[in-house]
Structure formats: C-alpha cells, structure tokens
C-alpha cells in the first residue's frame, strides 16, 4: 500500500510542478495552461451541459466497439483454436497487426460508409478485436488438459464444454483481453473523431485546437485523461479480485 501512496505523491508533485512552471511564465499560456485553470474550465463546461452530448456520443461509440470486439474476438479465437492450420497461417497477421497504422484506413471507411458514426465505431472495433482474439487464444491454450478430459468423462456436449469448462477456465486471460480492448477502443474512437467527424470529445478537442481556445481544449483533454484513468483503475481492481479468487495473485 505504501507503493500506492508514493505513486500518489509523485503525481501530486508533478501537478504542482506543472502549475508552478505555468504560473511563473516559464511556459507561456499559448502553449500550456496551469492544471488548476484546466480543472476550472472543465467544471464550467460540465456544469453548463454543453459537453454532455459529446460525452454520450464518444462513450456510446466506444461501448459499441467494445461489445462488438469482445463478442467477435471470443468467437474468432474459439474458431481459430479449433482450426490449427488456419491459426498458423493467420498468426503472422496477428503479430504484425498492431504495427500497422490503422488510422490510414479511416479515409477509406469514410468513403465507404459516409461521415456517420459507423467509421469511428469500426476503427475502434478493428483496433480492439485483435487484442481480444490474441488474449482469448492465449487463455484457450492454457486450459489444463485434465479439465477437457473431465468434461469428456461427464459426457458434456461440445457447446456445454466450451461454455461451462473452457471459457471459465480461460476467464483471467479473456479479462486481460477485455482490458486491452477497452484501451484500444478508446484510442480508435477518439482518434477517429480527432481526424474527421461530426461530434464527440475528440472532435471538440480538434475544434478548440483550431480555434486557439486553449482553455476548452485542455479542459477536454483533462476530461479524457480522467475518464480513461477511472476506467483503468476500475478494471485493475476488478482483475485483482478475479485473480485472487483463482489464487493467481
């Protein structure tokens, strides 16, 4: 627990240092505004409610992307696990996938689907689904043989074996995949909004940036950081509990 406290202290010291550097004019206000001003600006934006639809738009798109990625990721991994040859063939694609700048596909998506919410959801989904597949495969590989045998002894059907034995056994790895997928979905959706879109937090940051409205821009950046950190913290805590129950931690 002391580690956590030191970490908190480091973060607080960093924020204070940033505040001092900005207040004394070492960094001018066209470049960076003090954290306290960001917080105040964010508070006003949240109170007058002008940001609420953007928050809903972004989080909604992220949610759809995540749900899609989790469903198709698990499904894809189960299929790939059942077909070793296909898996071997597709393995190089999976391993170089994240070194390909997916954002360059975004213009194509816009051309295909128009300037709607579909391209950004699709981008979030595409970034999230592969990490989900990889993690689930990793989990399926580690299901102890004895569990599969036990399922056979009990004469479970193929479907109930997957549902009642294999997926629960692979759950910690699948959960890790969900965690990574959520991070990737945020990257995809916010990035897509940033590039070209009609709404959402990423779009608002881009808009404020082009308006030289630093207060608004940094306020929304701060909001995004807060949202992502909260989601991360919740997931980490949840994962720790899951692992403890399994006796893994």
């Amino acid at each position, binding site marked *: 627990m002391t*580690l956590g406290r*030191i*970490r908190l202290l*480091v*973060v607080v010291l960093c924020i204070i240092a940033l505040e001092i550097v900005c207040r004394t004019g070492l960094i001018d206000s*066209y*470049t*960076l505004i003090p954290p306290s001003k960001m917080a105040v600006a964010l508070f006003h934006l949240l109170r007058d409610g002008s940001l609420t639809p953007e928050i809903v738009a972004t989080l909604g798109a992220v949610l759809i992307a995540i749900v899609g990625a989790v469903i198709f990721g698990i499904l894809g991994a189960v299929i790939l696990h059942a077909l070793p*040859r296909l898996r*071997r*063939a*597709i*393995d*190089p*694609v*999976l*391993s*170089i996938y*994240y*070194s*390909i*700048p997916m*954002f*360059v*596909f975004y*213009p*194509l998506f*816009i*051309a*295909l689907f128009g300037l709607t919410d579909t391209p950004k959801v699709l981008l979030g989904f595409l970034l999230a689904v*592969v*990490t989900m597949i*990889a*993690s689930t495969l*990793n989990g399926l590989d580690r299901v102890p043989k004895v569990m599969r045998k036990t399922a056979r002894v009990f004469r479970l059907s193929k479907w109930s074996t997957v549902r009642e034995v294999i997926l629960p056994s692979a759950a910690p790895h699948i959960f*890790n*995949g969900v965690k*990574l997928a959520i*991070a*990737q979905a*945020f*990257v995809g959706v*916010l*990035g897509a909004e*940033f*590039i*070209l879109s009609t709404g959402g937090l*990423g779009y608002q*940051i*881009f808009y404020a*940036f082009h308006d030289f409205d630093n207060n608004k*821009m940094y306020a929304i*950046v701060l909001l*995004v*950081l807060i949202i*992502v*950190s909260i989601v*991360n913290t919740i997931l980490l805590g949840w994962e720790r509990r899951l692992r403890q129950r399994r006796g893994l931690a």
Partner: protein
Amino acid sequence: MNIIGNFNTIDGAARPSMWKQHQRSFDLLMIAAAFVVLWQVFFQIGGSVALASPWQATRTAIAMLGSADFWGDIRTTFSAFGFSVVIEAVLGILLGAILGLRRLTGDVVEPMIAGLYSIPKLMFFPMITLFFGIGISSEVAFGVLHGIIPIILFTMSAVRNIKPVYLKSARTMGLSTTQTLFSIALPAAIPEIFTGLRIGISGALIGVILCEMFGSSKGVGFRLMNAVANNVVTDISAITLILIVFAAVLSGVLMKLDERLHHRI
C-alpha cells in the same frame, strides 16, 4: 507485462522443417490472396467513388514510387522516423536500465508508465504542436511519444530478469564493472530489449505518419490527407497500400530478427 500483451512474445520453439516452411509460405500466400479478394469485394460494393480496385491502386502506387516528387515526401517521413527511432532507443534504453536497476523507483513508476501506454496519445497532439511548432520536430516528438514506452518497459524487465547466477559468475571470474556490463549484462538482456525496440520502432512509424496527417506540410501522411481533401480516390488507396505494405514488411523483418535473437540464447 500484460499491458503490452497484444504483441506476441516469442518463445524458443524448435525451427520448423523444410516441408513445414513450404506449407507456411503457401498459407501466407493464401492469406495475402484472401486480402486481395476481400479488397475486390469491397470495391464491388463501394464502387469507384469510394476506393480503387487492387489493380488500379497497385498501378498508381508504382507510378507514385517512380516520381521524384513523391520521393521528397518519403525522404521527409524517413528522416523524421529515423530521428525518432534514434532518440527513443537511446532515451528508452537508458531510462529502462535505470528503472530496472533501482528497484523501488521501478516499482513506483512502472504502473504509471504502463497506464500512460493505454491513453490515446492523439490527445497530446495539440500539446506537441504547440510546443514544437508544425514541422519535422513535432513529427519526431510524436514518434518518440508513440514508441518510447514499450522500450522503457521491456528494457526495465530485461535488466531485472538477468539471472543472478550470471552476475555471480562474473564476480567469481573477477570481471570489472565495464566488462560485466558489456560481456554479461548486455548480451543477456539484448533479446528482450530488442522486443521492446521492435514494438517501439513500429510505434514511431505510426506516430510520425499520424502527425503528418494533421500537422504537417510535407511527408507521406500529409500526401494522404491531401488526397482525402481533394477526394482523389486512387491516390488515397495507393498511399494507404504503400504505407501498409511498408509497415508490414518492416514489422516482419524485425520479427524475424527478434526470433533469431531469442533462438541464440
């Protein structure tokens, strides 16, 4: 290191036989063919207003690669990419080594760095342009921002995971500190550090291209956004193709090197 778990780490499996190798290249070819077919299907659905056919895009890409104009953009992208790789490698390995050697600092900082990794780095784009201005320096900075975190994390874990027995035998043989560093510690840590570098290099490429897409007046990424703004469909498809093929080949080569390094140990 589960935060970067989406990059397969390599385990030292036995080398496949000749026959298996052939089967593998055949499968890879089939996958490539499947992509081309998929592309053609999308082309049939979307039509030529949305994207170019594989054949058209390849022809435009080859024509582009033949023009001096485009090579100017490639040079810009490459110099930004090169600078970011050098900077992130030096800084990342240095920071990683320090964090690996100082246990408490490492324990405190590691989750924070890993958390930073899951934040959409595009959010920092305005900040980077405000600090560095539009041009190559912000491209380099953005590239470094995208690539340095895995290098730090992997170097840190590499330094921590050096087997104590290696260091003990170095002491037994009476090696000096520099000798220990260069003939024991570095060779033992290099494979894992290289895995970090591989991910970091790919990250830098993504960062540089992204930065060119919104905040630059040169480079391949700028060309892409320019084609988008002018709605030149064949150019969009061709540049996308060039970027994807380059990133895939680069990553494939690094992957092979990585495998070889892991086999040697």
